[in-house]
């Protein structure tokens, strides 16, 4: 996909996801709502795949299906040749090879950052307990959180907490990292730093990233591919290949190529956003 300029030691890319004709119908008290309609996408190993679409369109439903939080109604999802969920088994098994970073953050508030990071390896019995803690501390230090390893999540800033959450995911060496609008509530400056931190961690691990966002600039800045989704029911409307050179940094944001890509994406998204807004108005009426 792209040259491994950053980690010559080269971690092999892994985590090819293919989503084939997935449909999801919710059925709360007899009212059938189609969230995802016959949606397919193929994500290459180690690809950063950005999902953009209007609110409530069903992006998160796909993420939940991959992670094993919700079942799917039709279709199948395959990870590295193994079926996660399909007609036989509508609900994927939750496992540490697909880890989610949540919209509002889900670091356990009752554990310190180090305990949070050590939690995954500890319950999986990867290493002895003391070693889990040691490795967690090291990982946090590498991510620039050395000063706060023994703080509780409630005591650190949201930016730090979000970085720690990504560390907590990556220490398990997952195949896929699923991010559900992790930087939604942050200001633009913090976001920029978060993006750079994420790219750095990505370069070290080469994990496949499935990243949901509303922010087009974020999508194009981080992604290899940007999937623009339609409003509910969710389908792929447009796939944009982002062939901006890596490494990318804040100067990328001002290049002509970047601006053109944003414009291309913006046109596709705006149309869907309008449709979604009108649909929302109809529902409220």
């Amino acid at each position: 996909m792209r040259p491994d300029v950053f980690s010559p030691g080269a971690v092999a890319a892994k985590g090819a996801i293919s989503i084939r004709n997935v449909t999801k119908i919710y059925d709360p008290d007899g009212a059938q709502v189609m969230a995802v309609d016959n949606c397919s996408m193929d994500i290459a190993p180690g690809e950063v795949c950005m999902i953009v679409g209007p609110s409530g369109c069903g992006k998160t439903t796909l993420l939940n299906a991959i992670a094993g939080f919700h079942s799917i109604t039709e279709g199948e999802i395959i990870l590295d040749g193994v079926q996660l969920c399909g007609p036989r088994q509508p609900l994927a098994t939750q496992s540490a090879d697909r880890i989610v970073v949540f919209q509002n953050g889900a670091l356990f508030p009752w554990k310190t950052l180090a305990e949070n990071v050590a939690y995954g390896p500890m319950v999986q019995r990867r290493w002895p307990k003391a070693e889990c803690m040691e490795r967690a501390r090291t990982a946090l230090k590498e991510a620039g959180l050395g000063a706060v390893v023994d703080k509780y999540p409630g005591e650190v800033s949201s930016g730090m907490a979000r970085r720690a959450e990504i560390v907590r995911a990556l220490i398990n060496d997952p195949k896929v990292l699923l991010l559900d609008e992790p930087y939604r509530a942050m200001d633009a400056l913090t976001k920029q730093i978060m993006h750079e931190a994420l790219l750095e961690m990505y370069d070290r691990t080469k994990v496949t990233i499935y990243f949901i966002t509303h922010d087009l600039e974020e999508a194009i800045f981080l992604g290899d591919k940007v999937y623009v989704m339609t409003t509910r029911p969710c389908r792929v409307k447009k796939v944009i290949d982002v062939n901006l050179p890596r490494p990318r940094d804040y100067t990328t944001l001002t290049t002509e190529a970047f601006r053109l890509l944003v414009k291309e994406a913006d046109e596709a998204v705006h149309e869907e956003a309008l449709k979604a807004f009108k649909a929302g108005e109809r529902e409220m009426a």
Partner: protein
Amino acid sequence: MSAIAHDVHAGGHSPAPRRQPTGFGMLLYRMKKGLGSSTPYLMMLGVAFWIFAYWLLCEGLSLPRFEKIPGPVTLLSDWLSATPQQGTSIYTPDYYQHIWVSCRRIVIAFLLATALGVPLGLLMGWSRKVKDFTFPLFETLRPIPIMAWVPLAILMFAGYETPVIFLATLASFFATTLNTMLGVQSIDESYFRAAGCLGSRKRDVFWNVVVPGAMPYIFTGLQISIGVAWFSLVAAEMVSGDYGLGYLILSSYVNSVTVPMVIGMLTLGFVGWFSSAIVRFVGNRLMQWHVKALAMQGR
């Protein structure tokens, strides 16, 4: 990128963390700050005013109905005297016997209710099935006021001790169970999901998500529970009992001695307040993460 590199540097050398002033230092600081405002003086004035009003009504003017209630002077002189006129003071061993018996009953009832209520509440909150089967029964029995159980308890259990403990236990059990269940249900779904993604087994989820996540509600529940335990203890001791503060109050009434009655009430208030302070203290000790998070939000 530079910001992160800087952080790594800082983390690598890990400078000694600045400690927040705690304990005694904090207390001194607060006292100094507090004495600068009018609040403590007004509070003293308020208490003094009410005690004066109490004295005036009962002793100073001896208004018609108030004269039957012992005023502050009578009360204190009897409470502190070695030879109390009405039989109860800090020098009579009986007084401590009453306190000791009530406290022992409360401790037993509270521990029993906690040992039963917390596990049951955790299960009800965690497992849909357990809740479905037990909650309706629970909700059928809960509206029956504890007082209504009194005669039944006396008939069901022999002696003085068991009915009283049963009633106090029952009252705290409802409060503890309900709050624990609500506590588990209040845990954000994403913590369960995060635990699932990280490869937890059911047991891990229980000990690392369900129990600590419900902790703040459990302790709120325990505070309520110790309050209702005292409430029903007094009721039960009044109706059936040989010792205890509730018994002291009622027997003084029956024997037409009013000073021990008021002593009993005030003692009861103090002991009740003290026991809930202990529960609060233990809760804050166990939930440093919660206390600190609240402090960060400026609460």
